[in-house]
């Protein structure tokens, strides 16, 4: 039963602003957590110091000659025998060769007209096979 003189129910006519700080915090935390800064990715190599030249015995070199077509000619040290491969097969080849000769150095020689991507494919395969001793050159006299 309504009692006389009881106040009417009051309804606030303003939008409540007490929660805005919470909303701002939620947004802030959300973006703090979800933001990832674009980190560059790539294949890192260490260039030789200027004038630095190392003498390496031919038998410790695996020549990888990249042709403009993307085919890789593999030549072991002094032997004249050439084996043709795709860049994706270098991975397995290197693992095989390096167990036979731990001092092996990969000499990547790229034809001047070959696309950069073929060199990256070969370098990628060598990195995948954990090769550390890599020499990058351009193919001369060809």
């Amino acid at each position, binding site marked *: 039963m309504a009692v006389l003189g009881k106040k009417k129910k009051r309804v606030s006519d303003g939008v409540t602003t007490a929660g805005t700080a919470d909303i701002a915090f939620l947004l*802030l935390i959300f973006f703090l957590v979800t933001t990832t800064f674009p980190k*560059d*990715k*790539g294949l*890192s190599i260490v260039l030789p110091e200027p004038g630095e030249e190392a003498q390496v015995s031919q038998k410790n070199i695996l020549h990888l000659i990249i042709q403009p077509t993307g085919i890789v000619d593999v030549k072991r040290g002094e032997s004249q025998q050439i084996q043709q491969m795709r860049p994706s097969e270098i991975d397995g080849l290197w693992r095989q060769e390096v167990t036979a000769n731990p001092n092996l150095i990969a000499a990547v020689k790229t034809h001047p007209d070959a696309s950069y*991507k073929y060199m*990256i494919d070969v370098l*990628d395969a060598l990195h*995948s096979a954990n090769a550390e001793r890599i020499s*990058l050159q351009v193919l001369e006299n060809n």
Partner: protein
Amino acid sequence: MSIKGGGFQKSSKASEEIPASSLADIAFLLLIFFMVTTVFQSDRQRPIEWPAAEAATKIDEKQKNILNIWMERDGVVYINDQVHTMEEVTTVVAPLYAASQRALVISVRGDREVPYRFMNQVQDALVAAGVVRVVFATDLEQSMQRERR
């Protein structure tokens, strides 16, 4: 003893609520802190097609210690948003490298179709500038998508 709701005045007048009036200030401070400390990449992206590599790793270096050298398909070199000739690369990079106390990492961003002769010239120029740490920037290749050539 007072009976609850018995009409006696409470002895303590301390508020039971955590004061929330400064929350907005804290939020703003954090916002301003992150606005000031965030460093964006200084040079614009150039339209190149990235080569892809499975073994690509993140470059573990501060943004300010990375110098990007862009190589476009026709052999044009961009350093810090400016076109340079191949001969100028050494003279541009060497002072920057010295200024960074040899901490600079060069990120070579070449288009996948660049003839290798240009990449080789850039490498020679970098060796002449005394640079040791170089990264060939690539996209990460997923092994399932690897195209067979």
